[in-house]
């Protein structure tokens, strides 16, 4: 530990405001960026899910409980889209 007390750590021998302002801005901006990106992805995911849900309610949807095993495995076939 480079400091004697927590108070000395906060003060940083008078350089505290500069150091903490820098770290503050860094943490706030990074948090905004990370949380914002995360929430936006989830919002987009949600709208895609609704879109998929509305599509599948029109089309016959395989029910995992009652449908025969072949039908269930058919939906899981990984078809390459390329």
């Amino acid at each position, binding site marked *: *530990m*480079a*400091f004697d007390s927590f108070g000395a*750590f906060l003060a*940083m*021998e*008078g*350089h*505290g405001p*500069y*150091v903490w*302002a*820098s*770290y503050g*801005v*860094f943490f706030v*901006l*990074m948090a905004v*960026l*990370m949380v914002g*990106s*995360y929430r*936006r*992805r989830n919002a*987009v*995911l949600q*709208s*895609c*899910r609704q*879109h*998929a*849900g509305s*599509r*599948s309610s029109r089309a016959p*949807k*395989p029910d*995992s409980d009652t449908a025969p095993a072949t039908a*269930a495995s058919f*939906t*899981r076939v990984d*078809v*390459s*889209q*390329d």
Partner: protein
Amino acid sequence: MWPFFHKLGSPKWFYGIATRLMPWLLVLGLLCLGAGLVWGLAFAPKDYLQGNSYRIIFIHVPSAFLAQSIYIMMASAAVVTLVWRMKLADVFVKATAPVGLVLTFISLFTGAVWGKPTWGTWWIWDARLTSMLILLFLYGGVIALDRAINDEKSAARAVAILVLVGVVNIPIIKYSVDWWNTLHQPATFKLTEKPSMPAEMWVPLLLSVIGLYLLFGWLACLRMQTEILIREQRTRWVQDLFHVNEGVR
């Protein structure tokens, strides 16, 4: 090599890989950055010349470092966009440009705040700060052009051209700004040379650089996933994503 290359270009493949990779990137990134910053803030010895204000280096250098490399990465992706028309490359440019802008801003802000106790003034028109300011303008231009063009394909190619023109100019800008003003201390941190700082200083610095890189990886994956979902929401694989999930539940 070519099948791998094609796979790499497939948004679906990337989406899956990113989902698996992201928890690791986030946890490791937070650990490295946290360790580096706590070490740098509380345990590293103070600099005999600049006192404690030098502790800003542990965020200033990583963000400046990353801000510059993001532009280089964007330029590499721009080449891929123009030559192979790979969708993912364009998604990368679009998803990471705002991250680069924010990091450039952070490095400018921390540089200015660091300048106050060191030079006695908030802003000095020194070579490195000015170059970063110009980099901020370049990022701003890329984002503005991308927002201004509605058509997705045209936007991708126009932005790629702009990024490439920018990357050709970056060394010229750097050189001319250096020539214009050579006041600043030499670069703190070179990967090839043994740093002249003591180990208690450069090890936490290295840790926070690595941590921020990992967090950037996480952010890039996340933002690319968002962009891919928006573009491909009507394709089957995106819809299947949810059916499979429902089946599992």
